[in-house]
């Protein structure tokens, strides 16, 4: 925006348009993909169809939101996927037989997660490597608990994931719900402002008299809880536990956040965008199977899809991601 512009009040007219476009982008990508799928297979456009199409996106959405809270701090969590995997193991092994143990273990993992976050903030450690280390820790714990995939998630959990709510399929209700809650918590609640400020410019937030430690711990706790929920629902869908079930969640989550208009600079994330981003990415691989892409190109095609979706940002002249 030209500096002169700020002198005449009308100047911000061009400002919101880019914003809205950026938030609209993931929506557009999602619609295009759905369009393709429906074109190939109209029957998908049904309660049953949409349920199947998005079922696996439910845990991913929570994992992505968990990643979003960390990225809001200008950091990254490479242990997210392994953490979710560990949760599925705890759930599948203990939740049914010994709920007490399960809860205890889950609380324990959350505490460790937060403690590590705290360590990262006070010692100003590079989160990318610390969380890489933690991913080994989580995977290790998971394998100790459950040396090979198995266990059984409690029936109530499985049924919950099969629940058919009125009007919309469960995945869409979930998406709507967490998008709204997330938006309120981070974008419009008064403390959410502080949380985002702490991500972008901790020094000035501290100067305004806020406790950075509290803000950061809150974000880490939130991230841990969301990851736990992701693991819970995932084991509900897969009806079991598996240490290696979700390594992909780490990068998918990051992708979803960026797709949703987030940046690594801290403080710039969008819960709604992230949820939509997660839905989009979970469709990316589906689109390929609908389009019957040649096996040797299937992975490459996913890369190209990423490019296509994100390149839209350039067309609307958005800021550097």
């Amino acid at each position, binding site marked *: 925006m030209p500096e002169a512009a*700020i002198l005449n009040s009308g100047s911000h007219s061009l400002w919101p348009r880019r914003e809205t476009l950026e938030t609209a982008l993931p929506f557009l990508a999602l619609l295009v993909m759905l369009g393709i799928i429906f074109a190939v297979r109209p029957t998908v456009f049904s309660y049953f169809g949409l349920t199947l199409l998005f079922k696996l996106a439910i845990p991913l959405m929570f994992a992505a939101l968990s990643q979003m809270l960390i990225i809001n701090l200008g950091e990254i969590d490479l242990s997210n996927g392994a953490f979710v995997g560990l949760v599925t193991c705890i759930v599948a092994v203990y939740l049914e037989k010994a709920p007490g143990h399960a809860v205890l273990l889950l609380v324990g993992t959350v505490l460790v997660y937060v403690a590590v976050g705290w360590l990262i903030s006070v010692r100003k450690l590079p989160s990318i490597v610390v969380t890489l280390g933690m991913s080994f820790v989580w995977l290790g714990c998971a394998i100790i608990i459950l040396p090979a995939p198995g266990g059984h998630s409690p029936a109530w959990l499985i049924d919950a994931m099969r629940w058919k709510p009125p009007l919309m399929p469960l995945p869409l209700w979930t998406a709507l719900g967490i998008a709204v809650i997330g938006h309120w918590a981070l974008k419009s609640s008064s403390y959410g402002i*502080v949380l985002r400020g702490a991500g972008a*410019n901790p020094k000035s937030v*501290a*100067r305004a008299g806020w406790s950075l430690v509290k803000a950061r711990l809150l974000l880490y706790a939130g991230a841990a809880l969301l990851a736990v929920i992701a693991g819970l629902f995932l084991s509900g869908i897969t009806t079991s536990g598996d240490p290696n079930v979700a390594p992909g969640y780490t990068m998918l989550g990051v992708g979803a956040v960026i797709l949703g208009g987030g940046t690594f600079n801290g403080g710039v994330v969008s819960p709604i965008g992230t949820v939509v981003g997660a839905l989009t990415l979970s469709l990316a691989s589906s689109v390929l199977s609908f389009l019957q892409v040649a096996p040797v190109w299937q992975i490459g095609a996913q890369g190209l899809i990423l490019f296509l979706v994100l390149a839209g940002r350039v067309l609307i002249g958005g800021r550097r991601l």
Partner: protein
Amino acid sequence: MVPGDLIAMDSIRKAFGAVHALAGVDFHVDRGEVVGLIGHNGAGKSTLMNVLFGTTQRDSGRFHIAGREIAGAFTPHQAHEAGIRCVFQELSLCENLDVVENTRILHRSLQGIGWRRRARRLIADQLDAIFPGHGIALKARIADLPIGARQMVEIARAFTVTDAPLRCVILDEPTSSLGHEATRQFLAFVRQAAGQGVAAIVISHRLDEILNVCDRVVVMVDGRVVAQQRSEGLTRPDLVAMMGSIEVPRAVAKARDGSHDQTRDRVIDAPGRDAHDLPIHLAPGEIIGFAGLDGHGQRERMRALFHAGLKASRDRHRPAVAYVAGDRQTEGVFRIWSIADNLTIGTLPSLCRGPLISAAASRSLVEGWMARMKVKTDSADRPILSLSGGNQQKVLFARALASDARTVFLDDPMRGVDVGTKVEVYRLIRAEAAQGRSFVWYATELDELTNCDRIYVFREGRAVEHLEGTDIRQDRILAASFGGMVNA
């Protein structure tokens, strides 16, 4: 302590490693008093204010606020509760948030239903009160605002009041990136606020501002208060004398003979954007100034010319242009490097012996310039950030002048530089110009512009007026900059 004092600080000490930033400072402020705090770069002004606001903990010394003794650690939160606000030398807004949200950051009480509405009214009213006609979009992200507007927002935010009282506002070089008009509005408001019992501490190197806004002036030198007296009757030279540097009468620019006006040896010859935009040209050894209200496209034009110059000299390994940015935090210093590394980065190719950079050559270059610029530090191997704001600026200056660039762009380079140094730098620039180096100089302070041979006055992104020699007068410049502006 004197009863009735709002703030009373006694023998405050603070050392950073070897550097004694504060060597026993006594400092007090009355209710509703406007105190001017001046001193050369690195005198300890910012540090003193950081101690007062709780962002730096004092090593020793006691202080009272509103008669209450502050024992032990003092936090910004306590300062806020005690009615103190601070506008820091390096602006501290959250770039990812909009103006309203930044207001919320400052006030805990802005919460619950409708907090946004309340915050918006709060900041809007304050902005209108201080900078009528500011035209800042409250929905705009700070990142999208130019530095001038950011400073307005930060100042206005500091004066907003919710539950905690407002007793004293610390303003550390608040006008350093404000335009002329905004500065005038701001100073007027400080007086008005003082009238309503809100004290202010103003740190500035623009002594005229200090003289016309402050009741009392406190002078710091090397971490000590060396003088303080009421400002009536004081003149600019008095202040300069108090700071221990003598002010030489400014060399008044004389119109040059037409010798280098021929178009062939011009180093810059850029057409305007359109009919209403004057073409800009620059001859070797010339100093041209960009004037006008801050944020009217001077900076963009400088960058454009600079990058054009870069591209033109890309083939040659040594760029023919150099740039001194006033916004040193984001565009100037390299944070983890030493002073020496920061100084040499612009001249590396000429320091190379074969493929490698010669340590000896760098060393001698650095030492030469550290001496010439009188950079206040004990070793060029210290981290650049251990220098005070103004001293960092000197290093950036040295970086540009040390390079073999034929044209040097000065982007409000005196921001936060003390008077003594300024005079030095003015001389330096003249000397360099005499040897055929050309300068493009964007200054927010009018009197700086009198160092220029010619001046282009900018309005709304265009160069609208061209002044030369004796025409370079404040009235002419102001007339041109305000032109048909609504808020003129």
